[in-house]
């Protein structure tokens, strides 16, 4: 509420300072906010904060005095004039009347005391009447208050009849209002801007102990006085709806007039939480549904804003039926401009168990990274979402890079894959191959040879890469010491044969194979011979 007030003030000041067209826009907006605040307050009084017994007079008075402040301005201008006879000021009597009507006795008396003839009897008696008017019901029961009030009004009537105030017609008029006389109050109606203002004034002086559920009748009377149902603006219908406690009507009217559902959604939510909706068991499901509908709509609206999407997600959390599905759909569509934002989206999705959003966001980020040739980042994103297909795709890319350039581009990634190496077979192969390379560089030939063999034999390596692996094997086969035993060599031979027989090999590999086949066979044969000899020797010595 305070934010609304703040906005309103800001808009007003903006309206004053900017150009005509803009200022019209701003004024319109501040008017809307004013109306919203009006509605909000009334809802609070009548629906949310209902007091036992149903007395609403004080709150209604307060409501009116908050929203119709002309009398304060009038008073200020009268006082600031500071002449000898302030009653000659144009606004004097009007302001005084309004204070009286609004039940603000202290201010009325202050203003009265400024009158030059204050010392005279009639003013003194008026002052006394004003002072004695019973207003609050805090520690009185209904009946006592009623009695007190009736007594007071009788006294007013008495003094009026005696003609105490005959000299000053304005004073007389005020006395008549105090007495609750019909004609006086009806005359006042002409000066009121709205029917609800008049309704409250009338009730103050005819029936202050009015209960909230009786207000409907009086409201109807007031409306009739002010032009009947036909001339109701939407604001009026909303207020009438509130008075008659017809909440669906209120919401319907609000939704029709306002362009987004911020206000009705919050209002209905407030009412829902205050329990006022659950009067009927039947009704409660309907009203819960309505609340959710409004919230969903508002939240969807928020999601389309580039910055308020996070807030929208929080709103979706409060919609028990459809919230999470909608959120899932919308969160996936939030435009992601940076890593930071992506990780926030992922975090939100994770919190709420929306794994599909996590997966799709990671994929989007990965593809973006790929588009700028950043395979390392892409792989990191793929691993984050444990996406096997994407990882395989990226691993293939890295292998292709290797065959082109002869070295790996993201060595730190491959060296430290840790537990995510098992996400995809291709990745496992890639990691192992990198390990092989490292071992080779460091001179760990035996384990390297074993690894190489197992990579081929276990079929972990993709077919198109076998040629490269076999070529890698040549130096091991030609080494002085026997690194691969006969069984392993046989297996390698078999792999080679399989490769040669394979017709689906890509062209580049075919060419390479043809070139190197002879060399590989030769090396394999030599190694086989050496290995068999060694094993034979070992067998002999065993015997």
């Amino acid at each position, binding site marked *: 509420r305070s934010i609304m007030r703040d906005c309103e003030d800001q808009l007003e000041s903006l309206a004053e300072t900017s150009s005509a067209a803009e200022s019209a826009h701003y004024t319109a907006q501040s008017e809307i906010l004013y109306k919203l605040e009006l509605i909000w307050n009334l809802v609070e009084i009548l629906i949310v904060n209902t007091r036992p017994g149903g007395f609403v007079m004080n709150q209604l008075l307060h409501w009116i005095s908050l929203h119709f402040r002309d009398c304060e301005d009038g008073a200020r201008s009268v006082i600031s004039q500071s002449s000898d006879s302030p009653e000659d000021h144009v606004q004097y009597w009007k302001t005084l009347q309004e204070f009286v009507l609004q039940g603000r006795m202290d201010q009325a008396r202050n203003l009265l005391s400024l009158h030059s003839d204050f010392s005279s009897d009639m003013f003194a008696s008026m002052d006394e009447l004003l002072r004695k008017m019973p207003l609050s019901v805090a520690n009185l029961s209904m009946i006592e208050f009623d009695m007190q009030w009736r007594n007071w009004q009788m006294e007013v009537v008495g003094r009026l009849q005696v003609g105490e105030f005959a000299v000053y017609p304005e004073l007389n008029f005020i006395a008549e209002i105090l007495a609750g006389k019909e004609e006086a109050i009806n005359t006042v109606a002409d000066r009121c801007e709205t029917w609800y203002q008049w309704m409250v004034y009338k009730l103050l002086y005819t029936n202050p102990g009015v209960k909230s559920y009786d207000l409907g009748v009086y409201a109807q009377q007031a409306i009739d006085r002010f032009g009947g149902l036909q001339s109701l603006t939407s604001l009026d219908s909303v207020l009438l709806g509130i008075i008659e406690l017809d909440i669906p009507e209120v919401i319907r009217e609000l939704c029709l007039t306002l362009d987004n559902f911020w206000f009705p959604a919050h209002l209905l939510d407030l009412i829902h939480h205050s329990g006022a909706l659950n009067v009927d068991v039947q009704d409660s499901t309907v009203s819960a549904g309505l609340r959710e509908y409004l919230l969903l709509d508002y939240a969807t609206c928020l999601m389309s804003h*580039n*910055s308020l999407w*996070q*807030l929208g997600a*929080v709103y979706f959390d409060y919609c028990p039926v459809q919230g999470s599905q909608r959120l899932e759909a919308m969160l996936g569509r939030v435009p992601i*401009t*940076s*890593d*930071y*934002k992506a*990780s*926030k989206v992922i*975090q939100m999705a994770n*919190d709420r168990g929306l794994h599909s959003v996590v997966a799709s966001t990671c994929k989007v980020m990965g593809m*973006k*990274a790929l588009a*700028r040739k*950043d*395979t*390392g*980042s892409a*792989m*990191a994103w793929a*691993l*984050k979402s444990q996406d096997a297909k994407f990882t395989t795709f990226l691993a293939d890319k890295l292998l292709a890079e290797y065959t082109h350039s002869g070295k790996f*581009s*993201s*060595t*730190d*990634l491959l060296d*430290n*894959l*840790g*537990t*995510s190496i098992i996400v995809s077979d291709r990745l496992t192969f890639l990691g192992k191959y990198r390990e092989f390379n490292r071992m080779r560089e460091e001179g760990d030939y035996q384990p390297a040879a074993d690894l190489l063999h197992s990579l081929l034999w276990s079929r972990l390596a993709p077919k198109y890469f076998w040629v490269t692996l076999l070529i890698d094997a040549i130096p091991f086969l030609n080494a002085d010491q026997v690194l691969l035993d006969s069984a392993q060599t046989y297996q390698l031979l078999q792999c080679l044969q399989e490769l040669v027989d394979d017709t689906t090999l890509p062209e580049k590999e075919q060419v390479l194979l043809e070139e190197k086949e002879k060399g590989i066979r030769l090396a394999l044969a030599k190694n086989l011979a050496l290995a068999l000899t060694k094993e034979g020797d070992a067998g002999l010595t065993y015997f």
Partner: protein
Amino acid sequence: MSVAAGTSRFVSKKVRKVRWRPRADSMQSGSDMLATGSWDDEVNDVSLWKYSEDTDNSISLLASLKHEGDVTGLSWLNPDLLATSSSRGGVSLYRLEQYKILTPGQSWTDLHAEGGATCLSIHGESVATAGQDGKINVLNVRQRAAVKVFDKADSCSITDLVFSRSSDLLSSNMRGQIKLFDLRSNKSEPSSTFLLSNEQVAITCLAKHPSQGHIVISGGENGFLAVWDLRQGSHPTTLLSAHQTPISEVQFHPDQPDHIFTCSQGGELWHWNGSSIKSSAGGSNIINTSMDLNLSSPWLSSEAVKHKVETNSLVSRQPLPINSVDVLGHSVLFGGDNEAFYVLHNVVL
């Protein structure tokens, strides 16, 4: 227990970074000005606010300038010069004049490719930025051209940077590695690499101990804090399980480094009181003569792991993430995605 009262200020833009202005003289305990940078809006801004601690703890706006792209890093080089890094890939300097006006100074653009700069770190007159493209730029405020550029500093996107010494730059990446770059050498590779764990957990932020440059604390995506001793080992010395959500920022208290503050994406803000570790480990000090390295800071001690760090939550859990925290004297400043920032004063240390 810290019962801190707070002031808030609604800014209607999501806050990405908040920083206290450094004290002009060391006699003051707090600071009277702070800077904030926003993100994720159509037009982002860098703003300067005045915080009057003595009078009524009110916050008022002094200056606000438009910023291209999101503000991803914000740091004061000295009490009059502010540097920001942007998601459009540039670094801008702002000069503070007459204690209330921000004027844009020098700026560098196109330092990084798509995704822009993700972080900024300052040491003396050097400004270093790193970005999503794995590139690190080291700039000097007096020069137009970059002093040093590491084109392929990392194979994936870099999440945070910190100068551990004037010639050593630490970068953390989204795979859980911290790399140390020696700026004096000509190599373009890191001189050492540190690994957080076997899993690919992103490191989201780094903080350096104010006086002992070999101690660095990092916050991770899984909500864990890791304490690193750069002189030994390639794995963290201690791992503290902290929040349930990624840690947005870690800060050491500049005067009392036994205290650190962390904020998370789950809307939590915690104050860690490390001095409780020292007192509880008092008895075993005499025996551990070989481990006197550890006694120099409670964060390196293994006691910390045994849940003996006293932690307070400074605010109740917020529904939206808290993105940044900064502390000076007795005031803690933090801000997040709920479009407001808060100052907690009289935080008891």
